[in-house]
C-alpha cells in the first residue's frame, strides 16, 4: 500500500544526492512555516521565495536520486514516505524556526555553506549534479545576501535584537560541525571528483561569517562539542514533528495527487 514507509536503496551516488535533497527540502519546509506570520510583507515574500528555490532544488535532487535508484520511486514518495531515521539531512536545517533572529541565523549558517558548496559542485565529475549546482549556487548566493543583511541589522540593532541574535548563534553553533565532515559513503565520491570536499569549504564559510559577524557585532562561539549524526539518520526530536505535519496528507490519503 502506498502509505507504507519506503526505504531508499540506491547506490552511494544516489544516497549522496538524496542527502542534499533532504537538506534543501527541510529548510524550505521550515521557511514555509513562516507563511502568513512573517514580521512584514517584504519578508513574507522573501521567505516564501527562498523556500520555493530550496524546494525546487530538492525536487531536482530527489528526481535524480530516484532515477539512479531505478526502483520505481518518484520524488514525492522520497519526500513523503520515508521515516525520520532514513532522512540524511544536516541537523541544522531541521532546527525549529524560533524567533525571526533564530531563523535568520540558521539561514546565514546554512547559506554561507551552501553557496561555496554548490559553486564547488559546478565542477563535479557528475554532469547532472554539476547542472543542478549551476542553478543552486546562484540561488544560494542570493539567499546568503539576504540573510547577511538581516543578521547585521539584528546584531547591530537594538539591545534586544542583539541579544536574540547572539543567543540564536550560540544555540545553533553546535549543529555546524557536521557540515564539514564526510563519512565512509561520501569519501570515495570526493576522491572520484563527484562530491566537493567539505574540508576545503570550511575556510570559505568561516571567512564569510567572520565578515558578517564583525559588522553585526556578534561573537562566533568557540568550537566546543559538536552534534553529529544527521547524515547517518540520527536526528533530534524536532524532525519527527516536522515530518508528521509535512507527510500527513500523503500518509492519510495514499497516492493522492494535485
Amino acid at each position, binding site marked *: 500500500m502506498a502509505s507504507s514507509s519506503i526505504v531508499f536503496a540506491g547506490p552511494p551516488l544516489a544516497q549522496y544526492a538524496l542527502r542534499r535533497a533532504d537538506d534543501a527540502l527541510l529548510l524550505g519546509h521550515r521557511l514555509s512555516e513562516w507563511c502568513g506570520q512573517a514580521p512584514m510583507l517584504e519578508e513574507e*515574500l*522573501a521567505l*516564501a521565495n527562498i523556500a*520555493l528555490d*530550496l524546494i*525546487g532544488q530538492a525536487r*531536482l535532487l530527489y528526481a535524480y536520486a530516484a532515477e539512479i535508484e531505478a526502483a520505481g520511486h518518484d520524488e514525492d514518495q522520497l519526500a513523503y514516505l520515508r521515516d525520520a531515521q532514513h532522512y540524511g539531512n544536516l541537523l541544522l536545517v531541521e532546527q525549529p524556526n524560533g524567533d525571526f533572529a533564530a531563523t535568520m541565523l540558521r539561514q546565514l549558517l546554512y547559506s554561507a555553506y551552501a553557496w561555496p558548496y554548490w559553486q564547488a559542485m559546478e565542477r563535479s565529475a557528475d554532469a547532472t549534479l*554539476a547542472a543542478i549546482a549551476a*542553478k543552486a549556487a546562484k540561488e544560494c548566493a*542570493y539567499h546568503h545576501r539576504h540573510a547577511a543583511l538581516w543578521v547585521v541589522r539584528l546584531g547591530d540593532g537594538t539591545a534586544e535584537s542583539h541579544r536574540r541574535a547572539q543567543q540564536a548563534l550560540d544555540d545553533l553553533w553546535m549543529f555546524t560541525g557536521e557540515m564539514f565532515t564526510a563519512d565512509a559513503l561520501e569519501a570515495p565520491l570526493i576522491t572520484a571528483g563527484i562530491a566537493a570536499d567539505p574540508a576545503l569549504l570550511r575556510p570559505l564559510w568561516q571567512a564569510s561569517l567572520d565578515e558578517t559577524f564583525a559588522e553585526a557585532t556578534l561573537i562566533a562561539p568557540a568550537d566546543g562539542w559538536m552534534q553529529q549524526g544527521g547524515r547517518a539518520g540520527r536526528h533530534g526530536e524536532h524532525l519527527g514533528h516536522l515530518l508528521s505535519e509535512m507527510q500527513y496528507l500523503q500518509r492519510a490519503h495514499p497516492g493522492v495527487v494535485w
Partner: protein
Amino acid sequence: MSITASLTRAWRIAADIADPELPMLSIADLGILRDVRWEDGTVSVLITPTYSGCPAMSAIADDITAAFAAAGIAPVHVRRVLAPAWSSDWITPAGRRKLAAAGIAPPTPGSAPIACPRCASMETAMLSPFGTTACRALWRCRACGEPFDRFKCH
C-alpha cells in the same frame, strides 16, 4: 514537408507560447525554449527553468502539449534540460524591450543604475530583493514615486 520545414514550423508553434507569469513575453523571448528537434520519431521540445523552483514549468509543458495538439502535431515530447543553466543573459533583445514596455525593468548586471520604467529617472532604490515571482525584485522610483518590478539579474 521536409523534416527541416516541419521543425521550423514546430519551432514557431513553441516560440509563440506565452510565459504564464510574464504573458507579454513568449518562452522564446525569455530564453526558456532551448530547442525543437526530432527524437525517436516524435517532436521533442526542450525547455529549461529560470529558477530551480520555478512553478511555471509544468504549466509551460501543458501549454506546449496543447498548442501542438491544436496544430495537429501529437504526440509531442516536452523535455526539461538543466545545462547550460539559464541566466538573465538568455532573455532576447525583443524580450528586454517587452519587459520595459510592461513596466518591468530589464535585468542589468551588478550595481549598474536602474532607470524607472515609467519616467526614466535614475533616482531609484530597491525596496525588497524578493518580489511577486521568483525572478523579480521590488523597486521604487524616487522621482515619480511609483513602485516597479525589476527582473533579477541572475
